[in-house]
């Protein structure tokens, strides 16, 4: 039944939507805009919307904070590495859980889900000394493995539900033609579960690119990531250089924001596909 909303109702709805947009978008917009302002304009109230944009903050960031650029590179390498490891591990396991049954598989599929309930911070206690002994602290590989471990169960469950939708006949036909397991997986199944791969990839990349706590704990210099460097810039004792931080936050945010906006429909698909279904 399509009820014609009254003018009052429409006005209230429009106001509420505007409020939601301000709540979600304004904090981000203010920082991005102000990254193009001179220091003395940054804390002007009301903030000026019409101003001559300057790239000074970006120049200072480039000149005086070489560690930020390096950290961005680290973040990228770690995000890409986590993406590759998680997609590979999730697809392989997701296929088996979608297609085959055994006591072991039933229990381990459930175990993967239960493991997601563990608060990851608790593993820092035994992991830190162990990783020191293995000389894995402050390496890219370590963060990639940790992040993959945090997301592989979500990834597996998403891939399991996507692969379960692929008609078995397609696989059987390929098998009759003599295709082996690997060929079937790569040539038949994978092309049909691209939306699942994108959904998992999006969750993983956003997480790995943005993760703060574990990067802060397990890196010192070599594998320091951008979110941690931004956090450090906030904590400097000699007074915060707001404009420079805004520039750093903007550079860090823009690529991942573009990704989320461009691929948002896959988020819903992923969330409903087994991640959190009832």
């Amino acid at each position: 039944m399509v009820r014609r909303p009254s003018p009052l109702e429409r006005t209230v709805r429009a106001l509420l939507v505007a409020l939601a947009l301000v709540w979600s978008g304004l904090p981000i917009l203010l920082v991005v805009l102000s990254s193009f302002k001179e220091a003395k304009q940054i804390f002007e109230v009301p903030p000026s919307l019409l101003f001559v944009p300057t790239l000074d903050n970006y120049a200072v960031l480039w000149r005086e904070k070489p560690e930020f650029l390096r950290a961005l590179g680290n973040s990228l390498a770690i995000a890409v590495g986590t993406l590759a490891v998680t997609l590979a591990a999730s697809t392989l396991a997701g296929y088996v859980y979608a297609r085959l049954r055994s006591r072991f598989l039933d229990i381990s599929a459930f175990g993967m889900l239960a493991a997601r309930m563990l608060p990851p911070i608790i593993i820092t206690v035994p992991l830190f000394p162990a990783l020191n002994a293995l000389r894995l602290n402050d390496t890219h590989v370590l963060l990639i493995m940790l992040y993959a471990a945090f997301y592989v169960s979500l990834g597996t469950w998403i891939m399991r539900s996507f692969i379960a939708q692929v008609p078995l006949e397609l696989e059987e036909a390929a098998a009759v033609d003599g295709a082996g397991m690997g060929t079937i997986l790569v040539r038949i199944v994978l092309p049909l579960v691209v939306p699942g791969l994108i959904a998992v990839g999006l969750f993983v990349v956003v997480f790995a690119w943005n993760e703060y706590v574990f990067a802060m704990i397990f890196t010192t210099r070599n594998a320091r990531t951008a979110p941690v460097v931004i956090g450090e810039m906030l904590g400097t004792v000699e007074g915060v250089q707001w404009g420079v931080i805004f520039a750093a936050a903007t550079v860090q945010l823009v690529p991942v924001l573009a990704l989320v906006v461009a691929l948002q429909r896959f988020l819903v698909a992923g969330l409903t596909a087994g991640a959190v279904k009832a």
Partner: protein
Amino acid sequence: MTEAGRRRAGDRRAVRWFHYAMTGPALGLLLAFLVLPAVYVAWLSTTASTYGQPARFVGLDNYAHLAADPIFWRAFWNTFFVVNGIVYVELALGLGLAVLLTGPMPFKAAIVAVILDPSATTESSGIVMWRYMLEPDVGLVTQWMEHAGLPTLEWSTNPIATLLLASVIAVWHHLPFTFLILYSALTTVPQDVLEAAEIDGASRWQAFWRVTLRLIMPAILIAVLFRYIFAIRTFAEVWLLTEGGPARLSEVLAIYLYRETFKYHEFGMASATGFVMLAMSLVIALPYLKQMYREAARGP
């Protein structure tokens, strides 16, 4: 269940060794980096352990120490209030937003895109954004409130204000998650059921409470559960605002654990704290895990 799913339920393909091997990378990652460390933590929580000394079994001493430590209880109750605040405020906002955006609306895709934006920000940038508005004296909103003669949020000195702001920022970060789950659940509510209710004389309000809400209750429970599990881990928001200060008054459990580990090197105490967090998470997750166990046993 889909056609493919039904077919496969009757399918009893033999599980070969390489099928188990294919689950190896996923299970190996989980075992090495989550499950085994968690088991080790459980054991470590019954020992006195620090750098350079072998762990010594002390039974439940660490838990007794925790129970006697006012700073632990402070962190416990801070976590309790922060977690519950986050979960239910987020549920109310997420549900309201999902209802608001259900149905035709101009520019809807663009509106949803903006609402999802906070989920793409890193925690440290989120703090940058909120501090820019609420920094003492100079923050844009702080200045505006002072100008308007309103009280300002003294988050850097008042622990309750710190936790309040940390909760607001956490809600800001994670509202898109709750919103998306509830929004996609709402789109599955069949219109004819609502029409039938209205024909039977139910007001729209009644139809919402008695029909819509009941139909999306599974999604609500899932959203609440996952937000509980993740909110218990809250660390970065508080850490980046005040590091749990002043005087450890705004600490949450994750920060308490972090300090015990990396500042005091009391690994036994830290592990006991971790085990408390673990137990809280599992108790909350129990009904969900029970249901998922049945689902796993039934197959995809």
